[in-house]
């Protein structure tokens, strides 16, 4: 049987299965944006994920020895295209996306044979959900500057510190955690990754209330958590290498919808702005109507260019036709589009976006975007970090002088304090 016929058959089986087992996606809820999840919903979601896994549609390209299907990228692309109209279970929302698209490939690339055999099937089946324990109160964009320490004690590690901005960690089972294992060397050389059990007695996970009132992110207090060598991911003190591969997955893979753009998808995408213009009394006032119409088509245009750019760069990344750092262009595009679009929405809505009848609580969502539109400008490496990466690695521009790359990390903070007081 030719490859094409096999793929066609695979697709038609998949269609049947999807139609029989998954609900259609409603247009107004973007995938993965379920905030403030209840524990029961998460538990139920895990069972749904297990169904999809058992049908063979999770881990399509993951080797069979790690619980996957061992199929080609073409099979995976068929799944992405066919499933895009359905509610694919993401039991813990963003944490599930992180688990599947960031943690899973990171483990597959960097884990030991035993780790891959033990951990990957549990991830695919929904039994284990992971969160990223990366940022801290005092280190975010400068990830290599984290302060959480893992100290050697006999044949175990003792982990101590605070992590912040972990999506959905309250619902997660494990954290992939970056810690400093040697403060006596420059910052990039003394880092190691661990798998941390989040249900451990010495781990406290607390939701963080964000500026918009929702509680999607968490902070974790790691209070002398005891970890064995089998929890180390990658080599000890060589964690920066793993970090680079993890961040690449986070930047490139996390947010891109590869479904083709159509008149209908563009209409759906700009429907929110059209509705706002309607609510702002557009038909009654001609100048306002004109300004709003122009603003809507401008946003429609820029949303489309953004999508088209992401599809193009993602395709090139997949074929290896560009430097992997080009993933930062996708991230910067998201990080600049969001805030710009949020402001356009506010302008279209006019005063209706700042005060509304209490019987219409949804009017507040728009003003919310004023904050939330900036999420991707900051999270996962700020726009400024992406611009550094693009200019240095894609354009090959020379690096700026560094104040911390060449001295032991323990001296870095002391010297920086002196700089301020001088």
């Amino acid at each position: 049987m030719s490859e094409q016929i096999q793929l066609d058959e695979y697709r038609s089986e998949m269609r049947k299965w999807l139609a029989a087992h998954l609900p259609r996606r409603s247009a107004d809820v973007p995938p993965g944006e379920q905030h403030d999840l209840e524990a029961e919903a998460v538990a139920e979601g895990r069972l749904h994920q297990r169904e999809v896994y058992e049908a063979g549609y999770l881990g399509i390209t993951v080797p069979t020895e790690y619980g996957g299907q061992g199929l080609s990228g073409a099979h995976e692309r068929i799944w992405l295209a066919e499933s895009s109209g359905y509610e694919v279970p993401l039991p813990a929302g963003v944490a599930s996306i992180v688990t599947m698209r960031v943690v899973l490939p990171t483990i597959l690339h960097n884990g030991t044979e035993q780790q891959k055999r033990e951990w990957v099937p549990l991830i695919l089946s929904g039994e284990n959900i992971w969160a990223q324990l990366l940022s801290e109160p005092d280190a975010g964009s400068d990830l290599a500057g984290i302060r959480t320490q893992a100290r050697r004690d006999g044949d175990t590690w003792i982990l101590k510190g605070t992590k912040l901005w972990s999506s959905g960690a309250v619902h997660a089972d494990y954290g992939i955690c970056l810690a400093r294992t040697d403060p006596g060397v420059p910052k990039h050389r003394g880092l190691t990754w661990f798998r941390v059990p989040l249900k451990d007695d010495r781990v406290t996970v607390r939701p963080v209330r964000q500026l918009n009132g929702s509680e999607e992110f968490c902070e974790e207090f790691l209070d002398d958590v005891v970890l064995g060598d089998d929890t180390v991911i990658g080599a000890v003190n060589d964690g920066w290498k793993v970090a680079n591969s993890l961040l690449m997955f986070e930047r490139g893979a996390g947010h891109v919808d590869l479904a083709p753009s159509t008149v209908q998808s563009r209409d759906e995408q700009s429907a929110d702005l059209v509705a706002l213009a309607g609510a702002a009394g557009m038909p009654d006032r001609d100048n306002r109507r004109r300004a709003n119409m122009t603003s809507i088509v401008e946003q429609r245009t820029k949303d489309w260019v953004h999508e088209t750019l992401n599809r193009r760069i993602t395709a090139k990344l997949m074929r290896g036709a560009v430097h992997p750092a080009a993933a930062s262009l996708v991230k910067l595009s998201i990080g600049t589009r969001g805030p710009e679009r949020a402001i356009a929405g506010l302008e279209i809505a006019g005063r209706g976006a700042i005060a509304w009848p209490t019987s219409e609580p949804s009017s507040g969502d728009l003003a919310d975007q004023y904050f939330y539109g900036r999420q991707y400008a900051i999270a996962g490496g700020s726009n400024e970090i992406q611009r550094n990466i693009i200019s240095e690695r894609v354009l090959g521009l020379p690096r700026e002088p560094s104040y911390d790359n060449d001295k032991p990390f323990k001296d870095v903070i002391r010297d920086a304090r002196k700089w301020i007081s001088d």
Partner: protein
Amino acid sequence: MEDRDLTDEQRLLHQATVDFIADKLPMAAVRKLRDDPVGYDRNWLCGTAQLGWYSMLIAEEHGGGDVTGHPIVDLAVVADSVGRHLQPGPFIPMNVVGAALSEYGTATQRKELLPRIAAGELVATWAPLAGDGSWDAGAGLSVTRDEDEIVLRGSRGFVVEAPSADHLLAVGTLDGVPVQVVVATSSVGVDVETLACFDLSRRVGRITFDDVRLPAPDLLGDGSGETTEQLERQLQIAVVLACAETIGALDEMFSMTVEYSKTRVAFGRPIGSFQALKHAMADQLLHLEGCKAAVAEATRIVDERGSDAAEIVSMTAAYVDEYASRIAQQCLQVHGGIGFTWEHDLHLYMRRIRTTTSLWCERAWHYERLCEVCAP
């Protein structure tokens, strides 16, 4: 970032194009055309014609033919080089006229004009705009019937390479509906005024029609076609070629800028190591890549005659119009004082980019079109 989306045939076409340019009309020679009244050499034009610069949108039986079966995509490869190396001449309007005659012309019009356009022996240009530069669907050029003749009165503006053109395809109005007319510039009553042009490698004209009498069969397709649809198709072709040309020029200009910032030293450092400039260049790369992605998509959709081509083309034009000028300005900013000299090539690129986008990509106009296309 290098684009590796070309097919092997397109790669050969691209290589032949850049080899020809390097041999016949490199930048140093382009500079010298500034004082040339015609703006290009007719022998050079025939050489470019042999490379297929004017024949890709013409059917094979009339001396045309493309490379891969996707003529617009193939031609966009050439357009990139035209922009990248600031090649002069009637590249965009001649292709539009070739496509229009090939698709909508009468048998006589095709037979008489197309083989000579494909060979570069005849220069043809398109005249769709009013004297004030607006897209008037022919309102400013009245066409009336007088027995078996037609009479043209009025004007057409911003006609690219009109001063050297042998033939025009002019958009006018007959009985209240738009028509296109094939006009020899040597016809009695046709006056071409050469305007001063911001782009030193281009000649733009304003044409006055003073009771120009032509045989009625000079109406494109004998006046029987749906001119509004024809104009839409021709506009789409002009816009994607203009955008592809602009991308070539922008890409070249941006590369020059990045390289310059690596070698120019100030305050003891290459200026490209300063974060203020690095971030500005990263932003420009993002916009440039956005332009490239949009243009590649628009080119494909116009080639396939997709049902949403009008929308995609106008979105692409508006985006390229906005960011081409921004990127160009930022390139000048990174160059600083040296970029302000006449001898530097930078201003030649800026002139070409602004002229091409003003002609075909005007953002406000395309947004207005989109308001109609996408009206809720």
